[in-house]
């Protein structure tokens, strides 16, 4: 039943309810799809047995008419979420063999809603990267290729495995994490929908921490509705996370009214950056037209500190990461490389266990916190962060939602931009500001580049107003009618 993997999450949910097929059949179709997509290296660990066992339990409930919200729906999980009894690696050598004896809150909620786990997806090590090529388990390939070209492209990062899996129809949806764009940017590169909710909307408990004040879990899927469904199951206050927001979870699916009449859509001047391709500009323009056509009003807004968001992020995130990754020391779990003294053991273990980008960021982070530099770097960046956040607060007095491109380019080739870390960092220029401000953001595929690669548009909303973001995204999605499919993965 190969066609089952092609359904959207919402369609599959309805199909299961209508008993058009069973959860077991659906799981089997997805497991086959995962196998077919192995060339993409999107999965680090496949869990077909668990999927089948879960699917059987789903079928039992569905038969009794006691189906849970996500019963029987097969999902891929970014290998940054601790899943009890299943290897969890964060794509790092340093977590070799680590099998958590506990479950992350977000995945626990998904299993409690009846979802089925297909496996753990590949990523940039410790979520540090925008290409998913910085993985101990090898790079992930984008199921999209440039027209007429054979070169593998990156799926974006850090949640590239999840994005690629969903694009290749190996999973009806997936979880990712977004710290500076790690859901939105790969969603754009892979032609799928990806959302980073408001900071605090989803629990961080059990997610391998990268940058604590920025990390957020979020869904990938092929439609906005699907993302809304997943987010509803993932979100919620968790007393085990002190930064978790004690706010009600609205019915996100119900927010998709399709009505944006009178909505004020902010267009930030500063997001027109040098070197942004003409195609991107055109797509943005197209997005404005679509929303105006649906009755929304666009307003010019200014986010004056936008250009400082990336350098600000590249102080704060590495600083937090340098402390968050100090626990990977070879003492209690994971890799240990011996040494004659404890310090030698630490140094050998971490040198061998961490990849290049992780090392770079840990060193930068250590430096910017070190004696004599804290004020000039870390404290300065925290002040700039306040200014960036204030920019948005002021902008949201004039606008209800903000429309921008997601990325300054389409997917690039594996191996490109590897020489210059900064070139890699610039991929996140449009996504980082919303992360610093903790605001919800979604990326949806809006069109194809001339080379035939997906391009995404981003919507940013007020804190805890995912509903407006989703509603607007739904309207854009209808207008864009994006139905292109990648060449690789499904059907190969």
């Amino acid at each position: 039943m190969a066609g089952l993997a092609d359904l959207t999450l919402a369609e599959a949910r309805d199909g299961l309810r209508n008993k058009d097929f069973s959860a077991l059949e659906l799981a089997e179709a997805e497991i086959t799809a995962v196998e077919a997509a192995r060339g993409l290296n999107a999965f680090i660990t496949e869990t077909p047995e668990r999927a089948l066992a879960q699917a059987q339990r789903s079928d039992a409930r569905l038969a009794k008419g006691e189906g849970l919200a996500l019963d029987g729906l097969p999902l891929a999980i970014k290998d940054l979420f601790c899943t009890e009894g299943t290897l969890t690696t964060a794509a790092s050598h340093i977590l070799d063999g680590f099998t958590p004896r506990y479950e992350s809150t977000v995945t626990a909620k998904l299993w409690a809603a009846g979802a089925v786990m297909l496996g753990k997806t590949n990523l940039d090590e410790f979520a540090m990267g925008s290409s998913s090529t910085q993985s101990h388990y090898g790079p992930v390939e984008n199921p999209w290729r440039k027209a007429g070209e054979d070169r593998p492209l990156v799926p974006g990062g850090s949640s590239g495995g999840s994005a690629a899996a969903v694009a290749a129809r190996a999973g009806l949806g997936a979880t990712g994490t977004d710290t500076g764009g790690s859901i939105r940017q790969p969603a754009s590169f892979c032609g799928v929908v990806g959302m980073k909710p408001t900071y605090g909307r989803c629990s961080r408990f059990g997610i391998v921490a990268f940058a604590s004040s920025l990390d957020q879990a979020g869904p990938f899927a092929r439609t906005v509705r699907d993302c809304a469904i997943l987010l509803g199951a993932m979100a919620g206050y968790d007393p085990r996370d002190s930064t978790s927001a004690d706010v009600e979870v609205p019915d996100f699916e119900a927010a998709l009214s399709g009505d944006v009449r009178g909505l004020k859509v902010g267009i930030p001047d500063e997001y027109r950056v040098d070197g942004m391709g003409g195609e991107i500009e055109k797509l943005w323009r197209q997005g404005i037209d679509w929303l105006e056509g649906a009755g929304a009003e666009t307003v010019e807004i200014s986010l004056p500190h936008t250009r400082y968001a990336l350098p600000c992020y590249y102080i704060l995130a590495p600083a937090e990461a340098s402390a968050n990754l100090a626990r990977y020391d070879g003492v209690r779990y994971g890799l240990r490389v011996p040494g004659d003294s404890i310090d030698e053991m630490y140094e050998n273990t971490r040198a061998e266990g961490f990849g290049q980008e992780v090392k770079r960021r840990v060193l930068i982070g250590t430096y910017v916190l070190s004696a004599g530099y804290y004020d000039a770097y870390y404290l300065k960046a925290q002040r700039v962060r306040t200014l960036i956040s204030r920019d948005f607060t002021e902008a949201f007095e004039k606008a209800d939602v903000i429309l921008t491109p997601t990325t300054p380019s389409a997917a690039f080739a594996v191996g490109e931009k590897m020489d210059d870390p900064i070139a890699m960092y610039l991929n996140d220029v449009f996504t980082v500001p919303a992360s610093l401000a903790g605001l919800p953001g979604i990326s949806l595929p809006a069109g194809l580049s001339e080379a035939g690669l997906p391009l995404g548009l981003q919507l940013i909303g007020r804190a805890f107003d995912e509903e407006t973001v989703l509603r607007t995204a739904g309207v854009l999605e209808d207008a864009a009618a994006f139905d292109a499919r990648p060449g690789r993965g499904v059907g190969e």
Partner: protein
Amino acid sequence: MTLIEGRTGEWECVIGLEIHAQVISKAKLFSGAPTDFGAEPNTQVSFVDAAMPGMLPVINGFCVEQAVRTGLGLEAEINLTSVFDRKNYFYPDLPQGYQISQFPLPIVGKGSITLDLEGGETRTIGITRLHLEQDAGKSLHDREPGATYIDLNRSGVALMEIVSEPDMRSAEEAGAYIRKLRSILRYLGTCDGNMEEGSLRADVNVSVRRPGEDLGTRCEIKNVNSVRFVQQAIEYEAARQIDIIEDGGVIAQETRLFDPSRGETRPMRTKEESHDYRYFPDPDLLPLELDAEWVADIKASLPELPEAKKARFMADLDLDAYDAGVLVAERETAEYFEAVAEGRDAKACANWVMGDLFAALNKAGLGINEAPVSAASLGALIDLIDDGTISRRIAKEVFETMWRTGSKDAAAIVAEKGLEQISDSGAIEAEIDKVIAANPGQVAAFKGGNEKVIGWFVGQIMKATEGKANPRTVNEILRRKLAD
């Protein structure tokens, strides 16, 4: 001014203490694991305490309350907003690779402690601050030659770090400070102060200077776990530093350890660069906000503390500074004493508690809570002396019996053994006559001017009456008879 005599003149020793006090609470500071002492290794460790991937801290509100209570007991400012910071360094019993502590904005600010020194003198020592932080696990270096063993049971237990101003000037003062602080913590119920078990540990900062000059370079002696060792360490360290300076050298600022077997301090082997702790606010936590009313409620519910209790004993019960000081040192002692002294002569009760009771407790190695003679029983015994039923000397015997047998009923023991005091002058006079008649030589000695012979006569009467004769009556009649 306490000064030390060096080879080239006099020196003043400047001491500051940083005390780490384990908070009494059921669960740890940021996790729900238990805090009991002495469990099997790694059986009281939550995944948070083990710093497993993805684990997050959630603060135990009771530990916050205990810290506030302690701050109020130290007459200190309570900071309604404080921040938790990460103190970053690598050590195998520090699983996170950082300790959650408080650096620029601690929960408690400036306060003070009054020391009880010898001869009834007091001195006030400033407290700079108190903050909450996680304890680390335990590293055992002696189980195997080439390895260190790590037990994380203690990892994450709440500690209060209490920092004093460098106001102390002698080992005596340092000892008095620790004793007083410990007493206050035990009164408040916020720390059990057990130094042998490690619930109270001291880092001792010592420097020396010529009187009147600026502060000298200090050395920090870490993790000293008894008052005696603290005092020994201070004395050794002060002498070491004075020697160096008098030889023309310069004190290197370093962290040292005290070796009790040698009575010496020595430098630690960790290098200076590892002390860049790179403090920054912990992004897994928000600032700690306290409600002023809640703090006021805690303040209103504080028990009477040693200083206040001592003052009250002196004012209301007419005890002297020394006695009052001894009785208030431990909360349980003060409570025992107060129960005994209720409606009775305070001085007499104080003598019983500080004399007979303490002696018996020391001999048996018991704490006052384990005393076989309760405050009520002791009080009843004292009543029997007051109403003349027994003499004090007999009372001591009865006390011993009660102690030994656990009997609560002094009156019953007196009745059973026929220990009632003999106050009947006729009977006493008869005994006195017998002794006088049998000892003409002693009588002559008395008449010859030897007053001390009275004591011998009294002793004989007591022997003859099995100690039950009323001593005052004996004395009266004896003197009358001997005067004849």
